[in-house]
């Protein structure tokens, strides 16, 4: 993992016991992880009582460096040895590396999910609903007397949802279900490879 000069500087300060004593270090590590996971940006995130003694500019630089490091580690799916050797090079003590790594393990899955949700993709189908109706007649043709289905696919894209509605005859629904079953069979086969 590679980091810019300013991130490296910020991390080196974080490693330095004269800038951050053990207690402040733990607090800043916790705050850094939590600030990434909270759904809204909180301007008072660094206003912890333990962090008040520290020079505020240094605090911000270290916080930025820490969050950058965390995101890169999750993005690259870095393992313990990669993280440890990276932090070692930046003069982190074994103790501090351990604190960082255990907090990382605690929040890793959630961060992965967060990063995976960023990006563009087609609308995602979450559910389908249906109703069966009997078409008796309409204004153009009398005596139709045929059953048909109204299908509604509930899709979501980037937090806005849309329903896709369409009609189909019994044969068409059988065709649709047949194709979905083919897809499911191929998923099963692929998972066994």
């Amino acid at each position, binding site marked *: 993992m590679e980091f810019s000069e300013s991130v490296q500087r910020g991390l080196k300060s974080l490693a330095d016991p004269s800038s951050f004593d053990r207690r402040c270090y733990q607090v800043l590590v916790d705050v850094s992880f939590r600030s990434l996971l909270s759904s809204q940006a909180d301007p008072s995130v660094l206003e912890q009582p333990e962090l008040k003694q520290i020079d505020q500019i240094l605090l911000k630089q270290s916080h930025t460096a820490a969050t950058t490091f965390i995101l890169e580690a999750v*993005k690259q799916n870095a393992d313990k040895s990669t993280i440890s050797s990276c932090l070692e090079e930046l003069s982190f003590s074994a103790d501090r590396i351990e604190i960082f790594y255990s907090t990382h393990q605690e929040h890793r899955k959630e961060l992965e999910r967060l990063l995976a949700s960023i990006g563009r993709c087609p609308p995602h189908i979450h559910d389908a609903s249906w109703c069966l109706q009997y078409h008796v007649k309409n204004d153009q043709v009398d*005596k139709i007397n045929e059953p048909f289905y109204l299908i509604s696919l509930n899709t979501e894209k980037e937090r806005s949802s849309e329903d896709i509605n369409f009609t189909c005859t019994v044969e068409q629904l059988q065709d649709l279900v047949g194709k979905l079953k083919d897809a499911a069979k191929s*998923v099963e086969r692929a998972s066994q490879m």
Partner: protein
Amino acid sequence: MLLVLSEEHKEHLSFLQRVDSAVVGEFGRIALEFLRRGSSPKIYEGAARKLCVPVETVQHGVEGLMYLMTESSKHMISKVDFLDSVLVLGFGEELNLILLQLYLQNHSEIRSILSQLPSNLPAYHNLEWRLDVQLASRAIRQQVIPVLTMRLLLTGGSDSPGELSRRVLQTDPGTLLHLISTLEGALAAIKTNHARRIFRNIK
């Protein structure tokens, strides 16, 4: 069920009495082409010149004939009812039989043309699918996420009848299984006693 023809309609059709049966057959053909593809003034002008009558008369005759055919097909009226309905027009036996033939030969085609008209809801046409595995994105590497991407093709809809609209959608394997079981439930609904009773009794 008997058709009730308006005075205006009867007047338009009365023209058919004055021409011979070949012409009536020809008008029938024009009327059906009208239903299939629309009409053009040139056809009416040509016929009007040959018969030495005003274009309007020809047009009304054809339209009257077309309306007679669509109304009869719409209600699926029986042979007997059709003949009784045209009796009102006071035509001869031969003309009545020509009209009946026209109806019997074309009523299913006319019904299928009519039933294509009122599609204000999109209808299923086809579903294409592919299975992919997402390996990485800009935000995160080393993923293994199975994705089912689909293209749903739908016809109609009020803004583009007769044209196919394409929607690209995706889902995951878990939701796919849920969709399959939900839609199989839909197919099972048709086989219930309740559904069968309704189908039998509404005619």
